[in-house]
């Protein structure tokens, strides 16, 4: 059952585009994705008008002070499960505008981000690549089919490691999302 659900979620990501203070460069590349040359509808991606309908939030722009509050509100309005993609150098870290008086600097200072797509602006192919990689990451990893030698090598390695007891650090699973600690006041007041 979960396989079907994951399949449906991977094949039908509806996106909402939010501009949090961008120069328009990334935004026209996102709109260009809908046009015949790149045609993102092949992957089932639809540009939705309302936050309530969307799964993926595409954020562009270095977040300005005025947009920070609105960005948080739009993110809260989206139903779970939801993902955030920060598109462009400005959304990743503030870009050229880092340090300006009206700029928060980076989307991850306001909401948790799942994927970063750098570039100024990233080409439509790069945005598409990022979105597809995000979708494929939702699928649980398939176990690799090992050949006989690989299996033997693995068995020997496991034996050797079992003899050495070392305090291992806690390993965080690759698919687990790390949520940055956000304190309400500090994101807006510098």
């Amino acid at each position, binding site marked *: 059952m979960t396989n*079907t*659900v994951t*399949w*449906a*979620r991977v*094949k*039908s990501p509806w996106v909402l585009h939010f501009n949090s203070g961008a120069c328009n460069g990334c935004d026209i590349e996102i709109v260009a994705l809908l*046009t*015949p040359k790149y*045609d993102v*509808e*092949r*992957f*089932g991606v639809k540009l*939705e*008008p*309302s936050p*309530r*309908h969307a*799964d993926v939030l595409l954020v562009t722009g270095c977040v300005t002070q005025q947009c920070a509050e609105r960005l948080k509100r739009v993110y809260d*309005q989206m*139903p*779970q*499960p939801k993902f955030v993609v920060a598109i462009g150098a400005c959304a990743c870290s503030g870009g050229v505008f880092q340090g300006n008086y009206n700029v928060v600097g980076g989307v991850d200072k306001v909401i948790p981000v799942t994927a970063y797509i750098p570039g100024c602006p990233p080409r439509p192919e790069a945005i598409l690549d990022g979105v597809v990689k995000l979708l494929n990451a939702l699928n649980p990893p398939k176990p690799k089919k090992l050949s006989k030698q690989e299996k033997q090598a693995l068995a020997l390695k496991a034996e050797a490691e079992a003899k050495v007891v070392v305090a291992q650090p806690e390993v965080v699973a690759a698919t687990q999302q790390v949520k940055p600690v956000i304190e309400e006041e500090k994101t807006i007041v510098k």
Partner: protein
Amino acid sequence: MIDIWLILRILIFPGFAFILLLTLFCDWIERKFEARIQNRVGPLVAGPAGLFQPLADFIKLLTKEDIEPRDAKKIVFRFAPLLAFTIMVFAICFLPIDGASVLSTGGFSGDLIVILTFSTIASFLMFLSGWASANPYGTISSARVLTQFLGYDIPLFLIALTPAFIVGSLSIFTIAAGVTLASGQTIPIILLAPWAFVLFIITMQAELEKDPFDVPESESELVGGVCTEFTGAKLAFLHLTRDVQIVFGSALVVELFLGGPYGPVFFGLPAFWYSLWFVLKLLAVVIITEYITTLFARLRIDQVLSANWKILLPAALLSLMATVALVTWVYPLV
């Protein structure tokens, strides 16, 4: 006494499962056709040639979190989408699909009016769901839905009466069977009243809220339209209701004008061939309406209303009068 055959007919074919699959298939046809007109490819990845895209959309929406605004009218908000969907499917169950309809073998006199009423009730439930969602965009959009479908219902009824006049009966089965000429051949109504067919397609376009009569859903002013505030399963059923309305409207065109499921039977079961002809004719109508959608821009609400009251309603009346005149005086001579 439980009739197993009836239950199978209701649930699987030509009942619920068939209608659901047909709806998803028509959605796929629409999206591919629109993409092709726009020089694009359309859904490609979900299943072979993107066939499972509408199914993936539906399943994904069912598993999303369900958010209910604090100020929404609870009961209407929760049940209107599902109720609208149920009524539309129920309305389709009266149409002859494989020679007989889901519920009966011969229909009853007046079932044309019954199913048109059901379609009106479903549209009214869509209006209610927008109104109950406590969202300014939903409220304005639902007011537009109401104005539009109530206005266009009048020419719809009038033009739907035209085939009834020609055949002399209000039963869909009789209308779908067409007119039997003196030579013994049956011809579909479209050949006798082609003007009514054109007007009906235009009115159906407005009833289904497709371009150029797309006003209630206009993204550029009203964000998401009637379903702005809905998420999860309710949104899935609202979308599905809209798609079922398109299937219903096209099926009505097929039954009233194109001769229903009847067509040449080559070998074997007539029921199989009737279903095949029904589906083919339905797809043809769906493609025609989608073609009109891609060709035009969206009209303003006042232009839509003036098109209805100033152009379509007089045309519907004229068409009815012309048909009555022709039936009384000209056609008996043929």
